[in-house]
């Protein structure tokens, strides 16, 4: 039976898909970079020093250009501290309502991944803003922080997004009109730690790339701790009693390194047209779009 009916099919499929390439079985590894790159101005990209003895942190100051350490801020499987990898310890403490809401999100990565064409990820399907706290939990890369007398302005590399954190003593608004990035206020709890609270985020946004849901009751805490002159840490805690039985830490002491003020942060914008092109060329693997 197998020889008569199945084998010819398998053989034909194998011939169709046989690639014109040499195949090896050695485990691939990332090759080392050959030389430093240049920025858009033709200047060498100076990496953050990894072994220097940093000066003490300045008080009440998190300004500067900060580079996320490595690629740990990418959050491809969801919140870096709570990736959706199937491990029970990485599951946020969902309420019953939270579990039901989770079923409605269809991410294109992680263990619940659907095909790209089937995702309802608002960022990838519609080009919606990431909003808060996803801005901290997905593609967190080089971040410029501008500190002013009454507020702090965050400039994110990914998609060139900015947001304002008010530090003038105002309280968070009561029952505000929802916004993609909500409303943020910050207070110094000691000389080196700024705690930012954000509420009023639009329900259409996801917590992270894995599609963790939130309600309008979401309250996000960002804790920026300046370890020394050259190092900043960010911890993000999610609190949404409708969706989660208790607050959970989505990002734990994420490391930022200070880079020179002359660094020109490169654009990293996922335009819908470029993303469509990527999906067209890679989406079906046919590689025939010339």
């Amino acid at each position, binding site marked *: 039976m197998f020889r008569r009916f199945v084998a010819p099919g398998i053989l034909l499929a194998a011939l169709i898909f046989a690639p014109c390439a040499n195949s090896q079985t050695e485990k691939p*590894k990332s090759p080392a970079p050959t030389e430093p790159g240049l920025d858009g101005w033709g200047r060498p990209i100076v990496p953050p020093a990894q072994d220097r003895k940093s000066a003490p942190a300045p008080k009440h100051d998190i300004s500067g250009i900060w580079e996320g350490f490595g690629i740990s801020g990418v959050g491809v499987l969801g919140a870096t501290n709570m990736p959706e990898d199937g491990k029970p310890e990485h599951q946020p403490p969902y309420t019953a309502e939270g579990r039901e809401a989770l079923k409605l999100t269809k991410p294109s990565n992680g263990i619940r991944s659907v095909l790209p064409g089937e995702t309802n990820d608002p960022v990838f399907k519609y080009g919606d803003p990431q909003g808060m706290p996803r801005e901290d939990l997905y593609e967190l890369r080089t971040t410029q922080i501008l500190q002013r007398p009454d507020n702090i302005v965050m400039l994110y590399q990914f998609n060139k997004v900015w947001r304002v954190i008010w530090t003038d003593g105002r309280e968070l608004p009561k029952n505000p009109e929802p916004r993609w990035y909500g409303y943020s206020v910050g207070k110094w709890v000691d000389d080196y730690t700024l705690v930012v609270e954000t509420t009023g985020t639009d329900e259409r946004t996801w917590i992270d790339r894995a599609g963790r849901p939130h309600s309008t009751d979401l309250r996000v805490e960002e804790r920026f701790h300046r370890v020394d002159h050259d190092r900043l840490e960010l911890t993000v805690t999610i609190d949404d009693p409708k969706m989660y039985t208790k607050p959970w830490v989505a990002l734990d002491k994420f490391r930022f390194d200070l880079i020179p003020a002359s660094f020109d942060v490169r654009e990293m914008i996922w335009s819908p047209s470029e993303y469509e092109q990527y999906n067209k060329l890679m989406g079906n693997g046919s*590689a025939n779009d010339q």
Partner: protein
Amino acid sequence: MRYKLGIVLALQVCALSAAPLFAHHGYANYDTDRKVTLKGTVTRWVWSNPHILVQLDVADENGRVAHWTVESENPSTLIRSGWNDKSLKVGDQVTITALPVKNGNPVGRIIDVLLADGTRLPGRVNPATEVKPEDSPKP
């Protein structure tokens, strides 16, 4: 009859393989235990987000040409490893090592690119989860 059934099965395999399978940042589609060496001519160079893409024609010893598409990281990451928008152009002769996709289609993830002048451009490969700090580019 039996050959018709065989052809039907083959077409079913084709249909499954042609379904959209990629999510950028994903390694689930790649065979991370293998690598392929592709020596060919660049037919398309896409320096853009979310990931750069190279298309190239690769001929085997019998002259049969396969049209490959391979990807690497985003430009912002790759410039730290010596890449730029002028790293490749249509017509360049290159040798690319890559992780192939599991389904056998001519699609891969770049391990590195060797240019005709001997320049080697490293891709990035982290099949685990792509969240290991130690795998980050060190500019």
